[in-house]
């Protein structure tokens, strides 16, 4: 049956229109207004690259936000993906109770960020928090540390809120590992490969594209991370845990500086596109192994 081009276009048109209305046009507005001084009270005029220059030269808070965002993206795409991958490989051996373990490992990923924020605030509470109570019990003396609001521990504590909980990565890699053809593994076993050798030299390379996808998802999730930081430290103490999305939010809604906030939005888009392209290249995502 020949598919008529006209019908194709008609069916795609509503979707394309909606995409243009909701994404393309607003993105265009964000891009254009990033070159403007646009504040509340009707202030709006073109300033060229002033916002960008201000961000990279004078704004120390921006430097801190970019640095934090970069570190978190790096940690998430290495440590977080690494933990999920190792867990997936362990579960792929179908040890006793592996299905229950798989479900338990997923739990933090299905809880909302708001609930997680409240849970962690209580776990790390300096007065009655679970962590301080455990340390006090084990050490035999009262231990109190303000994990979220001590400048020395705040960054690590916030990182802890998401770094270890690699349920999504685990599920994706596990699916990939389990779909490796059995005859390939059989051939490896016949050749005398051990379990670890099969994992590192056969399965891991074959799940390359899935790993690349997980790295993209993890890295770009840090370009969107907002709720957990807002609900726990709000970027503090000072700007120790400030990241770009939270800084964008504060700039637009607290400082009422929309032009500057849109500049940050453009930076986030550029960083996201760069991350996707770079990771695609690194993992050779367009190449197939079969």
């Amino acid at each position: 049956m020949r598919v008529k081009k006209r019908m194709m276009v008609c069916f795609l048109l509503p979707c394309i229109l909606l995409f243009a209305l909701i994404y393309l046009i607003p993105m265009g507005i964000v891009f254009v207004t990033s070159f403007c001084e646009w504040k509340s009270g009707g202030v709006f005029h073109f300033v060229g690259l002033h916002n960008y220059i201000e961000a990279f030269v004078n704004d120390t808070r921006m430097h801190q936000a970019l640095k934090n965002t970069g570190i978190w993206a790096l940690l998430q795409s290495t440590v977080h993906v690494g933990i999920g991958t190792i867990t997936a490989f362990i579960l792929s051996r179908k040890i006793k109770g592996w299905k229950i373990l798989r479900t338990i490992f997923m739990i933090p990923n299905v809880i909302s960020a708001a609930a997680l924020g409240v849970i962690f605030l209580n776990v790390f509470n300096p007065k009655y928090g679970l962590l301080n109570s455990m340390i006090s019990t084990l050490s035999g003396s009262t231990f109190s540390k303000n994990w979220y609001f001590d400048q020395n521990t705040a960054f690590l504590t916030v990182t802890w809120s998401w770094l270890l909980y690699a349920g999504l990565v685990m599920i994706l890699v596990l699916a990939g590992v389990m779909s490796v053809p059995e005859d390939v593994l059989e051939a490896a076993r016949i050749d005398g490969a051990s379990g670890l050798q099969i994992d590192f030299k056969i399965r891991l390379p074959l799940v390359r594209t899935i790993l690349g996808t997980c790295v993209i998802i993890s890295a770009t999730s840090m370009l969107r991370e907002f709720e957990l930081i807002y609900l726990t430290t709000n970027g503090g103490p000072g700007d120790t845990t400030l990241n770009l999305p939270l800084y964008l939010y504060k700039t637009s809604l607290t400082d009422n500086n929309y032009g500057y906030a849109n500049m940050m939005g453009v930076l986030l888009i550029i960083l996201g596109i760069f991350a996707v392209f770079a990771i695609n290249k690194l993992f050779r995502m367009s190449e197939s192994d079969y």
Partner: protein
Amino acid sequence: MKRGFRKVVGVLLIGVMAISMLSGCGAKNNETGNKSNTGNTQVSDGGNESGKIIEINFPTSWVGVSSSTEWFNDRLKAFNEQYSDKYKVVVEEIAGDQAYVDKIKVLYSSKSLPDVISTGGYNLIDSMKDQMVDLTPYVDDQWKKSISEVCWDVNSRDGSIYGIPYSRQVIGYFYNKDLFEKAGIKEPAKTWDEFFAQCDKLLAAGITPVSMDTADSGWLTSLLLGAMIASNDEGETFMNTSLPKNYNTKEFIDAAGMIQKLFQNYTTQDAIGGKYENGASNFFMEQTAIIANGPWMISDFYDANMVEEGFSDKIKTAMFPGDVMYNSGKIGFNIASKSEEQLKASLDFVKFMTSADSQLKMLEMTGEIPAEVNVTSDNIYPLVTEVIENSNKAARNINDFQSLWYANVVDEISIQYPLLAQGQITPEEFATALTKAAEKN
């Protein structure tokens, strides 16, 4: 025939897809009927559908555990009964003052402010007055005279009225007299040196002196900070100055130093990073002896769900050392209606909510001090009377930081407090950080 039929089906499918996508974008809340809770939107409908019923959009944070919930629900019911044939108030419930302010800011940025706004004291007038209605033509002389001048001042900018006041901000601090007696303290401190000496006595008696917080706007802590700043004439002037840009003053830095000392020695472990609720809870559980807050807290002292029986008998109120009291107008109801019809409806609603009757109810139910000078009652908590008496005796009267300072300074203060508290910045650096934030405006 078959081909023609397929074409018709194809066109119909395209049409259905387009309509469903576009209607999803343009959905409006058109609920009618009796008062009901649909998610977090409450639609109160008078019931009689004769004639055109005008909807008044009013988001509010007077829900859940807010001390004003009971009062608001009472007033809303009374308004519905009186205006059942004319108006329908569409209430959107937003729990928490900060969440409410954030929502209004989002609505402002998309030019879709609701008809009526009430922030509970947060100053949004300076940043949003370009979308608010200038209410000056609608406030006649009689109305103006009935409410104290300080209340109109805080709701006005450049001679134009942007808010209709309904309450006065009268704030001192509450203390637990039983805990004071246990520490050998007979009466509240007259100077800040005496205050710190009393804190030492409380500590020696095994009692944590003060409830403090840093999260959100660090309300409890900032009330103490403001009272410390106002210890002299210059400080009092500063705490009555709208939108200050320079915090590098001697009074501010000295006060920040005292706050640092309080954080480091005289408050609970969960104060740093803690919210108002943590501080209030510590006071209710008698883990702290002192809390700075306004008379709206008094109803909680009698609430069996929050405190033990007899708690209210242990509580007294005091002026801050130096006879300083927060004693000012409070930001009231703002209107942002876009049509004449909506404006009239909103005005009627606001007039009702700020009427003498409503203010009397508010005084009796919540303890909040009315803006109208002639509204008094014998049916109020004794502590409220004490607070009012203190406000009349105060030597220095100041306004609170949420009403005076830039919004980004209020946000900045809550992320700088933990650094100040833990000695990671000096009081001078604290002042500089706030100055930098203010200069962005």
